[in-house]
């Protein structure tokens, strides 16, 4: 079987002393441009990925990262410029040794894990008994990369959790007889900290064996700790390329063009007077699948955070508040929901930005069941301007970048008259700029008397909340208010007494 290309220990590269800088480039992009319709996604990219190095690629959403990846992986031709593989102009077949793990995964949900391996790695599998070979190979690769992954090759992908799907996706990308360049697109967005650590350990072993790795991530600290070099993509071109050692997070943010806001400067959360607020929703001892004796309350105009490790009951609480069918949940106001998985449950792909934005507010604007287009347009125009959504109201939603799509979905909830807005980790994979805009929006709307319940997998975001409930194993283990809310504190509470529940 050819799929197990990697020697267990990893062979040392022949030229260890020269370091990655002296090694030959695996993939080189020269003056690459790419235009979609009216948007110029890439305006002339020069980039070199050398054998045995980890190159970190950072940039805002919409800077052209995804497009550049597709061009480097040979999925799309570029309009002008050249992509060289091993120094020669590449034709379609040469990209076989360049593999990419997609952020949204590139797996068929209805097929089993082993069948998905056949789809992407069939060149390296025997014609007969391929199912057995694929199962063995993916099982072994997963064991190597993510010990204790809990995935069976016979599982269907749709039955796996988001984190496990991501593991399978990364294993899928690595399953090939010869791997020159591995592109990882936001690999750790859905992975837990343990899995992320094992992934990066594996990446190290890959590069020691001479494979190049291109890492794209919004988590700049992570990029800096793993990458040898960092390239900054801005407005469709590489604006900076630096060695990672010696760079700090603010340096990179500065290179990306962010106005580094060290501390949230917009409306500091009002810590005082939370008890005095009128209650709009509460859970009293809610118990059920994934929840144990959860009691929490949401006041009018309050931003309540649900924190903790992923999958500890936060989403179940949102579900209860969204559909308060049980007696232990009381919600006194209308609700709007912002899903985290925008591809699956967020956007209406055939509709324009305006239609997507107004769909929840439609009923409130309409009079006697008839729509009022002029008023709708005014509301849409207001939101498009307020959040500076690129492309305007008439653009198709799928033409927008991920960050801008997310803005539309958040705006949809806030454009409705709902008194309680539920956020289900909506800012995953969204750039710093957009996030800052949306944090500001949340505070503004809360000041107007809206209540927000906000689940986030990123603990730093919780600093924008008035009150935070920290979850562990379906229980509320801590309630933090005002000054108490800090990343360190949340992490401390989330992990404390961990052995007890497992």
């Amino acid at each position, binding site marked *: 079987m050819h799929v197990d290309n990697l020697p267990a220990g990893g062979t040392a590269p022949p030229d260890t002393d020269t370091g990655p800088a002296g090694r030959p480039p695996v993939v080189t992009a020269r003056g690459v441009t790419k235009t979609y319709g009216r948007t110029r996604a890439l305006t002339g990219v020069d980039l070199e990925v050398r054998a045995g190095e980890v190159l970190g690629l950072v940039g805002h959403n919409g800077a052209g990262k995804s497009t550049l990846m597709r061009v480097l992986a040979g999925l799309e031709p570029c309009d002008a410029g050249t992509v060289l593989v091993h120094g020669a102009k590449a034709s379609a077949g040469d990209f076989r040794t360049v593999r990419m793990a997609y952020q949204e995964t590139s797996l*068929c949900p*209805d097929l089993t894990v082993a069948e*998905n391996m056949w789809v992407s790695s069939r060149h390296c599998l025997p014609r007969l008994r391929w199912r057995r070979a694929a199962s063995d190979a993916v099982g072994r690769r997963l064991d190597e990369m993510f010990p204790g992954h809990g995935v069976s090759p016979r599982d269907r992908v749709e039955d796996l959790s988001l984190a496990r799907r991501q593991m399978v996706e990364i294993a899928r990308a690595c399953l090939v007889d010869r791997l020159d360049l591995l592109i990882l697109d936001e690999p750790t967005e859905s992975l837990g900290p343990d899995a992320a650590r094992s992934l990066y350990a594996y990446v190290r072993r890959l590069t020691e064996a001479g494979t190049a790795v291109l890492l794209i991530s919004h988590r700049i600290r992570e990029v800096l700790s793993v990458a040898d070099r960092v390239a900054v993509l801005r407005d469709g071109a590489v604006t900076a390329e630096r060695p990672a050692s010696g760079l700090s997070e603010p340096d990179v943010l500065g290179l990306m063009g962010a106005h580094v806001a060290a501390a949230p400067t917009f409306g500091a959360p009002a810590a005082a007077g939370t008890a005095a607020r009128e209650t709009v929703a509460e859970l009293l001892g809610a118990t059920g699948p994934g929840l144990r004796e959860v009691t929490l309350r949401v006041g009018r105009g309050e931003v309540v955070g649900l924190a903790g490790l992923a999958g500890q009951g936060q989403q179940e609480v949102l579900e209860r508040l969204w559909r308060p069918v049980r007696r232990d949940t009381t919600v006194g106001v209308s609700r709007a929901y912002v899903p985290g998985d925008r591809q699956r449950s967020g956007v209406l792909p055939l509709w324009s930005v305006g239609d997507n934005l107004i769909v929840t507010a439609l009923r409130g604007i309409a009079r006697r069941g008839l729509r009022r287009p002029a008023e709708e347009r005014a509301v849409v125009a207001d939101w498009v301007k307020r959040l500076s959504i690129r492309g305007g109201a008439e653009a198709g939603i799928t033409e927008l970048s991920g960050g801008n799509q997310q803005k539309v979905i958040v705006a949809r909830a806030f454009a409705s008259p709902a008194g309680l807005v539920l956020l289900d980790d909506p800012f995953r994979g969204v750039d710093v700029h957009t996030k800052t805009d949306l944090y500001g929006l949340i505070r503004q709307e809360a000041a107007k008397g809206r209540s927000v319940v906000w689940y986030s997998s990123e603990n730093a975001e919780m600093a924008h909340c008035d009150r935070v409930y920290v979850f562990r*194993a379906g229980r509320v283990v801590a309630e933090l208010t005002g000054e108490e809310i800090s990343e360190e504190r949340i992490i401390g509470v989330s992990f404390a007494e961990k052995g007890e529940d497992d």
Partner: protein
Amino acid sequence: MAQLLAPALPGRARMRRSAPAAVSAVALIVMIGVCSSLQPGVLTVEGLTLVLSATVPLVIAAQAQMTLMAVGDIDLGIGNFVGLVTVVSATLLVSSPLTGVLVLAGLVAAYAVLGFLIHLRQVPALIATLGASFVWLGLGLFLLPTPGGTTPEWLASFGAWQPAGFPAPLLPIVVVALLVYLLSARSALGVRMRGLGSNPVVLRRAGLRPVTSRVVAYAAAGVLGVLSGLVLASQTGGGDVSSASSYTLMTVAAVILGGGSFAGGTAVPWGAAVGGVTLGLVSVVLSLLDVRSDMQSAVQGVIVLAVLAGRVVVGKVLR
């Protein structure tokens, strides 16, 4: 807790997927029970042969429908197609066997071409197969304007075959389901077909041509449609282009009963077989119960809805 739950999940998921077929299998057993209480002879080999034989062409046609539903399409022409095959086998296959065989092969090729055009022009399969159904109807009326004709001897003797020990109709039902299972669930081609129904983008990224998957699925559906028509002709002893027009929607119902979905991506050959037999048996039970023939369709519909409701309830419980 998550770690404890994890190993239990796939088993539960597998149970949830086979639940629809299990529900219709229960309905099937109940119906055979009702039949045997009314007519004790049903539980003998001859009785089961009689009861099951009417379901065989429907079950094979349901496999054709299932193959297309696995790639995310739907076939609204299968009923008339099966009818056309009965007409061909009652006319050309008797008068000049070679021409007849060639025409049947041509019909399979026509299905493959249909799939190719649907893919090439990005027409919804719903509309293209509906259009094709009128073509099949027209061809059938052209060949044999009024029902009649005779079936070739070999076909008639297959229809009259009575082996000892087991009901003859079980053999074609199981063999066809097994072949479709091998194609759609076990083979690499089947992975490509289901991959197309599940996520065509992935196929393209992996360098597989989605058009191949679609053409293979349509060709397979054509072969199964021809088989279904031949079996139907062997039972009726003649050709009638509109004899199977009810199959179009019955096959869709059979696939749904068996656990398939309109979204594509899943192949349920065994489920489709169970669903097809269940649906076919409903009319047998109703005749045994002396339900007036003008009411039979309505009652049949209610029973199908009840089984589907049972499927939904079981799915909810298992979620």
